[in-house]
């Protein structure tokens, strides 16, 4: 089954993730325009990075109310895997598919660089290609990646194993210095309670090819390709 990539006005990592998906699955994903109200047959939905609607008002807010998102929400509830990267994470949070919000980086600056991520869960279809505690090198590129949620929700995320990735140093230690944006508990990516929706600020599609400086992102697409082929 193919994957589908949602395209909003202002999405700009849609092509990048399509390239990574095609490399992993051997076929191009369906590109679905935000005005559509239905999705094609697909076993994976990707909400890509970018600046949907210019990220005006709040990052992801307007996209969360676009026609296609209603269908994405329904599918997510029905169990279809949904991956939100960067702006995609912001959109999924605004759409309440994932708890919490992504606020302005603590530095107030846009930041684009490679960071180290510690893999916290490997029993999901997104992360089964990694080992628990493995340190990945993946780029971030965002202005609003400062994950925040209240203490109670955070506890629920911790207890429920819903934290997928944390920012860490190159040895896997979760430290304040390794936190590029001020995220609470160094959170870089979270899952919903069912484990079929993942939102993450880092861009695995950007380091999925040796020529571009690393391949740590490729295993995520490899794992997804396997899962949806099965």
């Amino acid at each position: 089954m193919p994957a589908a990539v949602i395209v909003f006005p202002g999405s700009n990592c849609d092509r990048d993730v399509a390239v990574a998906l095609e490399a992993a699955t051997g076929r191009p994903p369906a590109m679905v325009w935000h005005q559509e109200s239905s999705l094609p047959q697909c076993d994976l939905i990707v909400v890509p990075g970018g600046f949907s609607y210019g990220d005006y008002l709040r990052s992801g807010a307007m996209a969360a109310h676009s026609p296609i998102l209603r269908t994405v929400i329904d599918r997510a509830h029905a169990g279809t895997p949904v991956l939100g990267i960067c702006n995609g994470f912001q959109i999924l949070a605004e759409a309440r598919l994932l708890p919490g919000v992504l606020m302005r980086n603590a530095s107030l600056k846009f930041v684009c660089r490679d960071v180290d991520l510690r893999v916290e869960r490997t029993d999901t279809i997104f992360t089964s290609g990694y080992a628990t505690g493995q340190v990945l090198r993946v780029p971030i590129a965002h202005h609003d990646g400062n994950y925040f949620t209240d203490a109670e929700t955070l506890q629920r995320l911790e207890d429920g194993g819903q934290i997928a990735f944390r920012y860490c140093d190159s040895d896997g230690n979760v430290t304040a210095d390794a936190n590029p944006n001020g995220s609470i508990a160094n959170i870089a990516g979270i899952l919903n309670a069912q484990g079929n929706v993942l939102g993450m600020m880092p861009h695995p599609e950007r380091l999925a090819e040796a020529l571009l400086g690393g391949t740590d992102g490729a295993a995520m697409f490899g794992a997804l390709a396997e899962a949806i082929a099965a």
Partner: protein
Amino acid sequence: MSITASRPQDLMGLSADEYDTILEILGRAPNVTELGIFSVMWSEHCSYKSSKKWLKTLPTEGPQVIQGPGENAGVVDIGDGQAVIFKIESHNHPSFIEPYQGAATGVGGILRDVFTMGARPVANLNALRFGSPDHPKTRHLVGGVVAGIGGYGNCIGVPTVGGEVNFDPSYNGNILVNAMTVGIASTDKIFYSAAAGVDLPVVYVGSKTGRDGIHGATMASAEFADDSDEKRPTVQVGDPFTEKLLLEACLELMATDAIVAIQDMGAAGLTSSSVEMASKGDVGIELDLDRVPRRESGMTAYEIMLSESQERMLMVLQPGREDEARRIFAKWELDFAVIGTTNASGRLTLIEGGNEEANIPVAPLVAAAPEYDRPWTPAPPCAVVNADEVPAADDLGDALISLVGSPELCSRRWIWEQYDHMVMGDTVVRPGGDAALVRVHGTGKGLAMATDCTPRYVEANPIEGGRQAVAEAWRNVTAVGATPLAVTNNLNFGNPERPEIMGQLVGAVQGIGEACTALDCPVVSGNVSLYNETNGKAILPTPVIGCVGVMSDVAKAVTLDFKAAGDTIFVIGETLGWLGCSLYQRQITGDTTGAPPPVDLASERKNGDLVRHLIADGVLTACHDVSDGGLAVALAEMAMASEIGTDIGATINVSTDIPTHSWLFGEDQGRYVVTTAAPEAVVDAAATAGVAAHAIGVTTVSTLTLPGARPISVAEIRATHEHWLPDYMAAG
């Protein structure tokens, strides 16, 4: 002439002679709208009246050139039916007044220049000059400009991959923000601005028109006085989201054959876009201003024609294709309006509310644009400084540390980490090296690009400085392994009405031309920004060169970082120890007197060709060109760039008959530092090519050991190098 008696008080920046020419062209006095149109069309910014005579001397042709200067951007063949389209443009004055929006709209403007020709932009660069770090405005300007460039480029999703930054007191009241865009198109799908044909619909698309930036073009042609803060209403606000929609909509329409001509509305907005289309197509244009989409009520014809609202385009379509085009723009939620038609009158006619608001013959409006042969005096020659006139530091290692931690040479990471330099998924060599390398999507080939200029050299000797700017940009592109194809240039100077400033421009253009010819790298586009002065004090002459090269296999690219211990280090090119005008000299003596290092264009070319061949043959493990700070700084940069945690340094062992400090810090041109695991291959190839190649040492673990200097750990150099800019910015 009798009408002269009634010459209006406000000539909108035109001279009395220019006004008289208008009277002759029209055979009557112009109304205010017409005068405004002449004023912007004949402004320095649009007419190049001071520089045209000299720009014509630049080499602009070559078998690779599809379109040289004269269109929105230059077009160069890169094989396989593809072309690279690029240009650089200044947004100096707006960025000084409002750094965020000024820089952002500068990026927006240059992007439109490139996609209006049918290219998808694939990379942005930015060449920045700020005042002295301790000037009270500098920090705010750096912060705002960088945020603005990032804000626009990141949102539209085009990676910002390179650029340069200098600090100098001469820019205190007049910063330079030069933005460059590189795009890729099919050679059979390139769009031009000539509105050939009559009775064709003229279509306006994009954002609505407001009262933004009226007279921005003439502002860019005037000197600043201290009251420039008062010139505020001309500030334009950028909307990168709308630009992204405009980009996608234009490319979608360009995939059809509905477009006859297309032109972005940049400086002087609807005026220059409509006049240029009409002039190039030898037709007349009638515009019905009532149909222009507007953001504000009560706008006059004058305001509509001169508005510099951003994110707008003007197109001439094939008849009958309006609906198809309208559907595309509706899908992207952009304004679309048929606002006029082309005709055979040869005149620009503007109608508003049924009245004729302007009626100007297009040909003389363009052809009679003034062209001045301004008086100029050549820059006085500077004495050559001998190496022994510049004292050696007690410890050359300390000198190196202070150089790599200085504002001029410290890391620019704080800047480029605010730019998304990876979006589009093809950035093979990221910022921080010599040239950035961006793969041509879906292929194995790549485009290398860099911007360069060393203003202190240009000030000391404009001809040599002009040559050097081209040579350094060419060298940077060569250093990753690419073949330089062509350049774009941004000539930033002071007031051309002063003969010594004009002399700088004339000299720099001569030097640029000579270098472009010798290096087979023609000029395909550019921009001139004059009157960069505050209270009569000019900026350093700053002719920025942007160079683009092609590489057939990006997998063969070489970066500057030392890769492993045990490689042999060579210097390609001759080291004579030229300290005049060098950063070392400034570090030690406090200023940069003397003649700049000469550029020997023949050896520049031979050395570069050798390096490129060595890279293509897979002989080199790292390569870096030598520029500011000389060999010592180049070696330090290669060490710092090595992987953190497994630092690679070098041990340099040379015996020279020149003073050690001049060997280390001299800024002789035409040189590269390269590393290899196959030293004989380098020696043989250099001998065959007749190029000087000296083995100077080996790479080692974690420490840089230079002659006359204490051994320094790579970690120490890196810490110093990375510190200055973030600390400086945080101190505000």
